[in-house]
């Protein structure tokens, strides 16, 4: 039985401020025993890369995108990978395109950017992560190495690990006119 702790990095794509699904997925994964570094809403790819650097034991990067701008928000993934960063499987889910584009085409374009898995349903996440681990010989070793270290509170690690927080001051503010009928952060002044 595999009793090692497994860590994943979670966040919402750079232009997207939908918080609810993000929180629900974090809770779901934690209930399944994962340590979740949740970078929250409006997270640029560089911040995901920083989080991977800060948590080299991370098994995957899970990105949600609900505002239809997934392709634009992930456009720089090839450059980051070419620079040797974000070297973990990227799992993407949500509403991935605006309007009525043919889904296959959208998925093909996202895969061409380097997205490794596209999820239809967040319940599939634990299964996909299990499959990834089985297919990645180094993954379990990374997790065990991490568990050998003394672990400080995961909250502090989560908050301080990325070191890029100040750069994002204010980026998460929603547009004033987006009325709150979606399952988003629906609050309005």
């Amino acid at each position, binding site marked *: 039985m595999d009793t090692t702790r497994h860590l994943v990095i979670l966040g919402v794509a750079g232009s997207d401020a939908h918080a609810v699904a993000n929180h629900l997925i974090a809770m779901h994964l934690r209930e399944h025993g994962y340590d979740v570094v949740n970078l929250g809403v409006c997270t640029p790819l560089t911040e995901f890369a920083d989080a991977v650097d800060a948590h080299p034991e991370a098994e995957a990067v899970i990105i949600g995108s609900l505002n239809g701008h997934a392709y634009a928000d992930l456009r720089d993934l090839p450059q980051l990978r070419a620079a040797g960063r974000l070297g973990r499987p990227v799992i993407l889910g949500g509403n991935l395109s605006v309007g009525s584009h043919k889904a296959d085409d959208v998925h093909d374009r996202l895969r061409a950017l380097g997205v490794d898995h596209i999820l239809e349903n967040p319940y599939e996440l634990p299964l996909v992560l299990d499959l990834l681990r089985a297919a990645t010989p180094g993954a379990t070793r990374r997790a065990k190495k991490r568990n050998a270290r003394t672990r400080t509170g995961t909250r502090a690690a989560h908050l301080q690990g990325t070191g890029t927080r100040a750069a994002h001051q204010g980026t998460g503010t929603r547009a*004033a*006119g987006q009325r709150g009928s979606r399952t988003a*952060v629906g*609050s309005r*002044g």
Partner: protein
Amino acid sequence: MADWADLHLADSTVGGLPSWAETVAHLRDSGAPTAVAALRAARRAGRPIVQPRCGVGAHDAMTELLRSLAPAGPGMLTVTIDSFTRLRQFDHAARVLRENPADLNGYPLVAHGWQRGRELVATVDVPLEIRHGSPDPRDLFAVSLAAGFTSFEGGGIGYNIPYCKNVPLATSLECWRQVDAVCGRLAEAGVLVDRELFGTLTAVLVPPSISLAATLLEARAAVAQGVRCLSIAYPQGGEVHQDVAALRSIRELAARYLPADVEVYPVLHEFMGVFPRDRRAADALVLYGGLVARLGGADKVINKTNQEAYGIPDAAANATGIHTTLLGGSALLDFVRLDTDRVAEEMHWLQREVAELVDPVLDGDDLAGAIVAAFDAGRLDVPFSASIHARSEVVPGRDPDGAIRYREAGSLPFSAEVRRRNADLLRHGAGDPGRFIETVSADIDYFLHHERAFPVPA
């Protein structure tokens, strides 16, 4: 940065402002209707006034929008501010205003300037409130005062946690402390500015005690700076006994925690979550909001519309929403009575939860520091936060009657009794733990499910 009435502002803002003395004189002597007078009148009448949200980019269009809504009978109108201005991107707001004002999702007051603000105030015969979502509202507040607005929404918690990803609470609390201190100076000069606190927070299944605790702490911070008129807003959750208990508790908590000479006006935000898509089902929910506001003794209600599920409402739908809300709070529904025992029981437990949340935070000299420390430790928390400075360990859920309870209380400092009551109430509505996301989503989509249960023919 430069100072204006002890507010640290951008040089460009200060350069355009009238003097402090001229601003105070205009606020005191212009004769324009004030927010506090409208709220006092509502209190006397025993029925809530209705206020819509509304804001567009161009000045002419904003003027026309206010004029078109006034005949529907609002007791107060709004100038909702665009998101660039909320983030202090005043130059960007000005550029979009020049190039394509329809792209702005609100009125860029700082870019327009205080003189145009005075024109808006003079356009209608009801007071105007500035509603926005700024963690640092100081420049916007200065321009609002110079323009003669007598009501300004926000606070260091409620305009941070739901609106930004990473502004430290210490920063937003200090910015809002400066705003409140200016209100204190104005109160000494005989000018009451209504400061409304945004208890709606993230608007998604917010447990009432979290809403009331956050606004009560903001109220204490505001009063310490001399604020004398507070509107405390609470979001309709959907279960009438709980919502009425929460609204009625605002007055009782104010009497317990705030000085007697501070005016406190309870405000209801009509349901802020996922709205029915059918126009008639949405209208019914809007009517219900007006009724809840009246039953709870709210002095004001912020209305929704039957276009809520589809985006920003047009002026006609907003006018209908105002009117439907007024009907809900009118004598038409005065026959409605609630089970007083049930409301009293809700009030007892709600106020106990609030006390368990706020008493430890108030037990010291540095309120802002204590708020920051409590959020950091999860002793204060907001579910589904956009900000990383709230842990969002709290998981709410609806009980079988639809009332919002704590499924998980996280690190909130609740007593065993409070935890047990919440667990007991949720025992039959907990759903399948393996379908956690669907269970919570169903609670979020509560009124959507109501709508689907009674399909309306097209």
